[in-house]
Structure formats: C-alpha cells, structure tokens
C-alpha cells in the first residue's frame, strides 16, 4: 500500500492543509491527513460493507446547534425566497437554514434529534440532503419538508402521511437508527451483520450482489435505502450512472466525506504513541522495527483500512517507497490501546524517513511529523578467506572451483537474499557460481562460505568477485579476481605398441601400432591423428602415409590405442614412418621422424619351372601352353599388383603368355604361398623368343627366377 500525497483541489482543502501545516510547525509529533482529490469522479474509498463507521455515526456531539446553523448557512449563502412559482407552490420559499417548526429552527431540530437518539447530527444533515436536497436547495418546497428524510417513502409507492413533517421525519429516522445501533429486539431489520443480498436499484431485473455488512451503521443505512451503488454510479461521482444505478448510499457517502471529513474526526480521536523507534544508524541488510500503539478515544469501535509505517528513501514526499508494511483492516476497540510492530530490512544506503500512518476511507493520517530519519550505512562484511580459484591458472575447457568466506562484523544480523560469485567473460557473459537461492541472515560475527565450480570453456578474460544481494541490489564484497584463460596446446605422450619390420620386403605390409595419451586435464580435440610415411627422404620423400583418422576427441587424461595404421612396402628405397597429429592445421610429429625401414626384394622363387607345351616339340604357328609356379619364401604375405609371364620376340615384340591382376602371396608355409601361372603363346614366326616370370608391385616390375629363350 502506498501513502498518497496529492494536491487538494478545493479551496477548503487548501485552507485546511495550510492550517494543518501551521499545526505541524507548532507541535512536534502531531499528525496530518493527506487526501485524495475531491469527488469530481469517480467515487473513491466507498466500501459497500462499511459505508460509515459506527464511531462516526454515533458521534452525537460532533456539532452543536450553532455549528449546525453555521453549516446550513454556508451551504445556502443566499436563499431564493421569491423564486418563481414551481411544482404548484407559490413563493415564499423557506430555505432549510431559515426553516422553523413549532418555534424551533431546523438546526435546533437536527441537534435535538441527534441528542435524543445519540446519532451524529451530521448524519441527519446528510440525510436531508440525500433524500430531498434540502441542504443546498435555495427554494425548497413545503412537500420536501413533509418527507424531509424520505421516511415512509417507498421507491415504488407514494409516501405515507403518518410520517410527514421535518420533526416527525427526523424523529423516525433517529428512532430507527438508534434501534438498529442498539440491535433492538423490537426492530427487525431486513439485513444482518454478515452476508446480505442487496439490489442495485428498485428495478428487480437489474439484480444485485451479496454484501458483507460489517457494522450496525451500514446496516442502518441499507435499512433506509435498500440499494447499493453499481459501478456506473460510483464512476459518475455525483453524476448519473446508468439505468440500474441507485444513488442514495453513494450520495450519503459523498456528501458526508466532503462536508464532514470523518478522517479528521478519526484523527482527532486516535492517540498514537511510539513505543520504540528503529535504529537510526542501521546497516544495509539490518532488520529494523517500529513499534507503536493506537488508542481509540471514540465511544465506539472503529475499523480503519490499514495501519502501517510509511518509509521513504531520501525525501519524505518524493522518495522511493520503503514502507515497513501495513496491517488491515484493523478494528480499533473503543477505549483500548492496541500495539503494532512493523519490521523491515534496510535495503538502501542513504537517509530513510519513517513514520506511522493510518489509512481510512482512502485517506492517510500521518503521524510523528514525517517521522524518524535513519542514515543507513554499508554493513561491515569482511573476507575471512579471500576469493580463490583452483586451479590458479586454468585452461579453456578446464573445470574451475572458486571459493571465499565472508564474516559479518556488525553487531546485528544482516539479511542476505543471495550470496554468490559473479563471473563475467569479456565483462558480460555470465559464468556465475555459488549463488544461494534461499535468503537468510548472517548472525553477528558469523561466517559464511560461498563456492562453486564451473568450466571456463573458452579462452579469454574472466573476472570473478564475491557479491551480496539484498532487495535486488548487489554489493561487491571482494576484489575482482581476473584470469586470462588460454586455450590448451596439445600435449600427448606416444607409446609404440609394436615397431614395424625395419627390413621389410617389397610387397609386405608394415604396421605402426601405438597409444596416444592426452596429458591435459581438459578435453582435447585434434583434427587428425595418423602415421606419416616417406620414401627416400623424411622431408621431401614420396608420400606413402599409412593413413589418418579424425577429428579425434580425447577426454582429460584419456589414452587411446591405434592398431590399424598399415602400409604396403612398394619401393626399394629407405622408408621413414612416424606418428603425427594435426591440430588446427599444424602438425606435431612424434618419435623424431620415427622408424627408418630398409626395404628389400621379396624372396620369391620358381617352385615349378616354366614349361612350354609341357616340354613337347611344336611347330611355328602353333599355339602352345606356357606354365610356371612361384613361391613366397617370406614369412609375411607379399602383395602384388600383377603377376605374369612376359614373352618377347626379338626382345621387343610382345607375345606375353599370362598376367593376373592384384593378389597376395600367403606367408611361406601357409596355404596360398605358391601361385601357378598358365597361359598360351602362338609362336607364329621364326626367330628368338625370350620368356620369364615377372611381378609388379606398385608399378615396379621385378623378375623372378631366370629367363628362358627359344629360337624357332
């Protein structure tokens, strides 16, 4: 709930405020009232269940007869006694201020009735206005006086003559009001304290709603006018609502609050006492209390909308709202002193003004001359353990733990809505850790540790500090801890599982098997891992890489095994091989250029000599079979790209007998270690023919065994 400070729109209220100001200046500890604007529109503060308080309703001594007369005079400064005839009546017209009945003035009749029934005379004045408009009427008719308070006048039928006359009307009104206020067993009202169905208007089709009637005086008013104002009536102020609007109780409320200011009556009869005021030099985060009591000096209980402590930061009128809190509605028992305690947590640094206040019918009664000024300060909170980071120099991708401990050096508990370690990457990206979700207090002298773990997944600057949150405001409790996190460089350990044959045969597969271990405590992803192969020169030799795999991700300290990198020896040249990795385009070579292999010619032999026509004679122009068998004498398989029996006529003309494509000799002693070739040749010319066995490995031909020459 917010206290309202508004300009008073009417001259009367302006003068009233001046007067109140004067009272303020004169008397420390006095109270003031701040009002809402006058009822131009809409109606504010109307409560259908409590239109007026019993204490106000029964304040029979609120005005004496002369005050009533003065009031009536003020509302009709000039009576239009000789107004033109109207409604069938000729002048003179007698205004209420001048009206007499049986020798008594209207003011005296009102006063006497009020005294007789112990009802506030202001209630009768407003009744005369809301039923007949008599208070402001400058040419009232006799008929208006006859039914001055509307008593005996149903909304749907003519008035009952037995109730005619100003005195009679006021008397019946007072009689009924008093009977209801006394809860007389002889007066049966159609309403009860509690839930009641009350229509919006005499038109039953408009319906109504349940109203919880809170007090007798409201019950009495509904007894008089059994309708409640609908929203259209309330929105219209003094004006016209809609076809379902009834105005009796709305007008009663409006005229009464505008003319008699029940809030002022309440103010004059409420005694506020300060029992204890808050610490005037609190620390931010400290809980402060304001204890007050209110004594209702009225003859009846009064229910106020709320009692509270207003708090304002920096300025009593325009400062930010720092209200301690409000309780309400609160019924203040007649003659009873009731205590109220309000607490709040100081959430700002600066001057905070606080004072008790009562809200009643939309207006605030404010006490203690704008209250107590408190000057808050930053609490003394020290670091018992400075903010630390483990590891102290983390790498990107590394898990980092931050920790610190704080101590409350104040002699009061300090509220902590949240305590944490904000971390910012490049000053803005959130990597916070350690924030506590539940609020609590840090007792005097107590310590609290805040810690958390996160991963600095990117290289770059990270800043961390300890922070305390209260009421949405953050306070830094430690120096900023800065780290420029760098990206990790690959750091692997290579272990060979099996060295390659350093003297391999051409056509033999050589393998490099190894393990690679990530020595970092952060994950590492490399683009590729493989085995480099170079013939002749490790720098510029022909590329015969064993192969590459990738990208490969290693968890922190993970070791991976690679056993599938193989290469077939294809040249009789020095063959260098080593393990390498590629990381962001750069190669890291391991094992100091690795292994140097010296390939040799595979040990292949002719196991079945070459035969031509199975060794039988043949004629020129005859096509004859040619066969030969080759055996692998190596203990490893030998791969070849082609195997055949070349035949040359005069050493150059091709009469090749047989070729088979790529294949493999099994290791010696294994099935498949011998391959037989079979072909045919048509020796169609006379002259010399040369035949031999040849193997092609990676484009290079090697002769197996010796050549054979025939001359036809």
């Amino acid at each position, binding site marked *: 709930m917010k206290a309202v400070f508004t300009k008073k729109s009417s001259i009367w209220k302006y003068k009233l405020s001046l007067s109140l100001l004067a009272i303020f200046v004169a008397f420390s500890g006095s109270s003031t009232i701040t009002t809402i604007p006058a009822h131009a529109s809409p109606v504010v503060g109307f409560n259908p269940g409590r239109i007026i308080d019993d204490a106000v309703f029964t304040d029979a001594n609120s005005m004496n007869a002369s005050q009533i007369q003065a009031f009536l005079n003020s509302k009709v400064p000039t009576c239009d006694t000789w107004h033109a005839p109207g409604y069938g009546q000729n002048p003179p017209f007698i205004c209420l201020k001048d009206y007499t009945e049986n020798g008594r003035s209207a003011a005296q009749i009102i006063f006497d009735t009020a005294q007789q029934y112990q009802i506030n005379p202001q209630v009768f004045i407003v009744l005369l*206005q809301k039923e007949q408009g008599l208070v402001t009427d400058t040419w009232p008719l006799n008929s208006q006086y006859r039914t001055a308070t509307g008593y005996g006048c149903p909304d749907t039928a003519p008035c009952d003559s037995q109730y005619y006359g100003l005195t009679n009307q006021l008397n019946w009104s007072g009689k009924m009001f008093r009977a209801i206020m006394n809860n007389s067993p002889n007066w049966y009202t159609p309403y009860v304290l509690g839930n009641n169905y009350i229509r919006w208007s005499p038109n039953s089709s408009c319906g109504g709603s349940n109203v919880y009637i809170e007090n007798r005086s409201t019950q009495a008013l509904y007894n008089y006018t*059994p309708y409640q104002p609908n929203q259209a009536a309330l929105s219209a102020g003094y004006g016209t609502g809609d076809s379902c609007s009834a105005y009796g109780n709305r007008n009663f409320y409006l005229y009464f609050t505008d003319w008699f200011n029940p809030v002022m009556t309440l103010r004059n009869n409420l005694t506020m006492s300060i029992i204890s005021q808050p610490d005037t030099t609190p620390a931010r985060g400290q809980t402060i209390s304001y204890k007050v009591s209110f004594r209702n000096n009225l003859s009846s209980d009064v229910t106020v909308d709320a009692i509270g402590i207003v708090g304002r930061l920096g300025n009593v009128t325009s400062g930010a709202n720092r209200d301690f809190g409000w309780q309400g509605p609160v019924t203040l028992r007649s003659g009873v002193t009731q205590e109220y305690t309000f607490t709040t947590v100081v959430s700002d640094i600066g001057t905070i003004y606080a004072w008790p206040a009562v809200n009643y019918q939309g207006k605030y009664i404010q006490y203690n001359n704008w209250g107590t000024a408190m000057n808050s300060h930053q609490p003394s909170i020290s670091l018992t353990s400075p903010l630390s980071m483990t590891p102290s120099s983390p790498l990107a991708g590394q898990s980092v733990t931050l920790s610190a401990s704080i101590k409350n050096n104040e002699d009061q508990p300090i509220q902590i809505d949240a305590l944490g370690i904000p971390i910012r990457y490049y000053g803005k990206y959130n990597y916070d850790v350690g924030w506590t979700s539940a609020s609590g207090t840090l007792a005097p002298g107590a310590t609290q540790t805040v810690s958390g773990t996160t991963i600095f997944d990117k290289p770059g600057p990270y800043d961390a500090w300890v922070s305390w949150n209260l009421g949405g405001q953050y306070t830094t409790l430690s120096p900023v801890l800065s780290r420029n996190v760098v990206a990790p460089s690959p750091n692997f350990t290579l272990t060979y599982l099996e060295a390659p044959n350093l003297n391999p045969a051409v056509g033999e597969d050589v393998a490099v098997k190894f393990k690679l271990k990530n020595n970092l405590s952060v994950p590492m992803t490399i683009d590729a891992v493989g085995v480099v192969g170079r013939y002749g020169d490790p720098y510029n030799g022909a590329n015969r890489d064993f192969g590459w795999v990738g990208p490969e991700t290693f968890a922190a300290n993970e070791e991976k095994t690679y056993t599938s990198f193989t290469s077939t020896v294809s040249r009789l040249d020095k063959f260098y091989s080593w393990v390498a990795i590629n990381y962001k385009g750069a190669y890291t070579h391991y094992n100091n250029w690795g292994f140097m292999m010296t390939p040799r010619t595979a040990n292949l032999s002719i196991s079945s000599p070459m035969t031509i026509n199975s060794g039988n004679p043949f004629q020129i122009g005859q096509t004859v079979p040619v066969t030969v068998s080759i055996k692998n004498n190596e203990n490893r398989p030998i791969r070849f790209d082609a195997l055949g029996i070349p035949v040359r006529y005069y050493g150059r003309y091709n009469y090749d007998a047989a070729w088979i494509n790529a294949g493999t000799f099994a290791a010696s002693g294994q099935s498949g270690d011998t391959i037989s070739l079979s072909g045919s040749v048509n020796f169609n010319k006379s002259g010399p023919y040369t035949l031999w066995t040849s193997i092609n490995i990676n484009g290079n031909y090697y002769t197996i065994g010796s050549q054979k020459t025939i001359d036809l």
Partner: protein
Amino acid sequence: MKIQTPKKPWKKRIFIVLPLLLTTLIAAVFAYVYIFNGSILGWSSTDPSINLDKPTDDQIKSGVKIKNESLKKDKDSSTRTTDKTVAPQGTNGSKKAVDIVITAANQNDGVLQVRGLIYDVVGDGLCTLTLSHDEQLVTKTAEPQAQASVSSCKGFDIPVSELTSGTWQLTLVYENETMKGSVSKTITIQ
C-alpha cells in the same frame, strides 16, 4: 499688505474621509465574519472537520436532481394514507403484486437467520416463511415492520436443530388485504 492664502480644502476633507473609510472597512470585516458565521475565509475556527465552503457545483446539481426526482415521484402518485379502504388494488379485484426479496439466509451459531424485505412501507399483513426438504415442511410466520422506505418481516431466526442436513427450499410470502408477493430461494443446511 499681507495676503492670506486660502487653506487647501483636501486637508480638511481627509480628516473626515479617512475615519469613514476605516469604519467602513471594519464594518465590512465584521459583516463578512457574521455572514460566514464565525469563519474567516471559509475556515471554521471551531472544528476543521466541518466544511463551511459554499457547496460545489456538483453538490448543487446533485441536490437539484434529488429534489426533482422526489417531487416527480410525489406528482406521479397520489398522496397515500393509512386508510386501508382506499389502498390500491390490482386489476380485476386481485391483490396488487409487491416485490419482496430474501436478503439473508445465513447459518450462525446454530441458528438459521432468514431476513425478508418488502419493497413497500406496510404495517399490516403477514409474512409466511415455508421451508421444505423432502417430506419435511417447516412454516414460520411473522408480522411486517415498516422501515424508512421498505418493510421487513419480524423474523426469522430458526434453530438449525429443527432442520435436517441437505438442500432446503425457502419460500417467503407476504400478504395483506391489498397486496401479495412471494420469493423462493434454495439453501443448504449443514
């Protein structure tokens, strides 16, 4: 020869005009205070809670509207008397319908409080409240009582012990020699 210069006439008149002006001013102040009955500049020295300003335009307009509506109602209907013989009746000699409503039917402290409102000011006749539930029937009667602009029934406070739990139908009837009205409502007795 000594020439006498005539005295300036304004010097003589000032001793007359000035007291007159002061007297008029004082009289005006007193008249003002009298007119505003003890208040100066609209400010009452006796009780600041009482507004002694002239009524606002809204307040005057609202008062005129209240007056007009009241007089219009008087004009629309002839003056009523308490003489039962001339009381209005419905057409064909039937009784005039009167609007009634059950305003409250609350259970408090073992008592069912039923309140009825008759939208007319009546002093005679009878209110009859009938409560029915299954085969059970409870009937209560009460006289009406005139209020300011309506009437109530002098009842009804019914001990809940007379009623069994469940849904009850309430029917309130008001009837006198000239008018009759009824209304029903369903409640749950717990």
